[in-house]
């Protein structure tokens, strides 16, 4: 099948969605599909690049530019270019990764006799992410909409009631297996790790407050960067834990498994409704016990008491208590880590994710096929 992934950014721009689309494309190629990815332009890179597993087509117009405000007609030109591209490529299925304007452009210019469109919603709409009206427009125009967690489906239904006549399909994200085999968990280890974009939504301040409640030998590695970092550094000083925190800064995604391997416990203290929870899966892949908040899609990834521990959001004491429980019961921590590794392998492998999408693609194509 010739599959076209339609997204906003793609590599070498780096983000969770970019990595996901790349790994899904690789899995689909391994399954015998022809995979194309259409993404926003990157200065200095060609419009067309062919890689072993997929071909990247970069659009001429950057949807992030202000051109659309300067000249509203550019929206029509973008849609026209998208329609022409679709006619040339003739994909059998278009997989749109919901991303605002590029998604809209794709749907506006959609040829009448073209391939069915599956939209995957990767994030919530209860914040200033996408215009609700436009998100509704995109969701209502797609042939099928998948969400990366059941909680995200519920959130979409709550915020945009009736946007879809049919239920959302839930396809839990897959994560490519790391090349690195996890090293054994150290008994009663005292290195905690939290990583991700350093923004208030991730709740890293709660990790700092929990650290202040834990024995003095406990250390926290905080990897990532973002606008909340200066505030966190000030909070660390205020709490008297600055010397126990390693603000690691930006870490390349390829280096994340090795980083996790150095930790004894991974924290995910999010306070926002995480649509999925990539960090939780990555911790599980490396056999590390996880303490996460019971928000968004996280309970769909973490089985409380079996593959990790879930605590209420905004509760540093509960976070600290969960860490202490793991530290004082190394056997329990090891069992959680081992179970998390099995669980992620079984439920969050990219092959499983690709197979789930293949089944949805097949359903869409069957629905389009002329009846005998």
């Amino acid at each position, binding site marked *: 099948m010739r599959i076209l992934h339609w997204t906003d950014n793609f590599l070498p721009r780096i983000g969770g*969605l970019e990595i996901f689309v790349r790994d899904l494309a690789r899995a689909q190629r391994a399954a015998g599909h022809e995979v194309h990815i259409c993404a926003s332009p990157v200065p200095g890179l060609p419009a067309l690049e062919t890689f072993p597993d997929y071909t990247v087509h970069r659009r001429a117009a950057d949807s992030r530019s202000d051109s659309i405000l300067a000249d*509203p007609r550019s929206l029509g030109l973008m849609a026209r270019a998208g329609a022409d591209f679709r006619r040339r490529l003739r994909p059998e299925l278009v997989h749109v990764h919901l991303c605002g304007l590029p998604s809209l452009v794709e749907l506006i210019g*959609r040829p009448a006799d073209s391939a069915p469109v599956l939209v995957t919603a990767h994030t919530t709409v209860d914040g200033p992410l996408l215009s609700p*009206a436009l998100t509704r427009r995109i969701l209502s125009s797609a042939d099928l909409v998948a969400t990366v967690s059941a909680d995200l489906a519920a959130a979409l239904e709550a915020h945009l009631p009736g946007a879809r006549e049919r239920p959302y399909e839930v396809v839990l994200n897959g994560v490519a297996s790391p090349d690195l085999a996890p090293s054994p968990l150290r008994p009663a280890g005292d290195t905690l790790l939290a990583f991700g*974009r350093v923004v208030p939504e991730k709740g890293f301040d709660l990790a700092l407050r929990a650290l202040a409640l834990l024995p003095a030998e406990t250390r926290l590695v905080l990897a990532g960067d973002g606008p909340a970092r200066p505030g966190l550094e000030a909070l660390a000083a205020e709490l008297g834990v600055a010397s126990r925190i390693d603000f690691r800064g930006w870490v390349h995604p390829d280096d994340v498994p090795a980083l996790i391997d150095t930790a004894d416990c991974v924290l995910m203290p999010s306070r926002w409704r995480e649509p999925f929870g990539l960090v939780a899966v990555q911790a599980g892949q490396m056999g590390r016990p996880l303490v996460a908040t019971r928000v968004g899609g996280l309970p769909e990834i973490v089985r409380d008491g079996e593959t990790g521990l879930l605590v209420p959001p905004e509760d540093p004491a509960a976070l600290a208590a969960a860490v202490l429980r793991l530290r004082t019961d190394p056997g329990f921590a090891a069992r959680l880590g081992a179970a998390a590794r099995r669980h992620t392998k079984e439920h969050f492998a990219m092959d499983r994710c690709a197979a789930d999408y293949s089944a949805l693609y097949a359903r869409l194509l069957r629905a389009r096929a002329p009846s005998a």
Partner: protein
Amino acid sequence: MSQFFRINEPDVSAEVFDLEVLAIDLKTGHYHSLRQAAVPLWRLLVEGHGVDDAAALLAKALGADPALVRNDAAALVADLTARSLLVPAATPDSPPTPPGWLANLAPGYQAPVFDTYTDMRDLLLIDPIHEVDVSGWPHQPASAPDTTA
């Protein structure tokens, strides 16, 4: 007597796609989306057919109830003129012939859909949670190598 309309150029820019008409008011920056039966009705109107003629042609092409289509067409035209996307035009000297593309319409009548988005800024992605740029995510230092695909 049937009314005739034209696009309110140069204030309005319109692009006709297979499944949607994208009409943009260049003075306000408002973006209007016409879908379903609104697409062929728009095309017929701007090709010089009067409202009644356009409704009758579409009803015939799709095997739809002429009265239903006429009512829908009248309501759509009211919306389009209220938004100043279409303005009245002179009666043409000779009636246009029915266009060939009517025969290629997908069967089945679906009522016109007309949506208006009043802030072009809504079209731009504002995503503080998942924000990437060419320098990477979250803020890839200049020394870090690019990930090649």
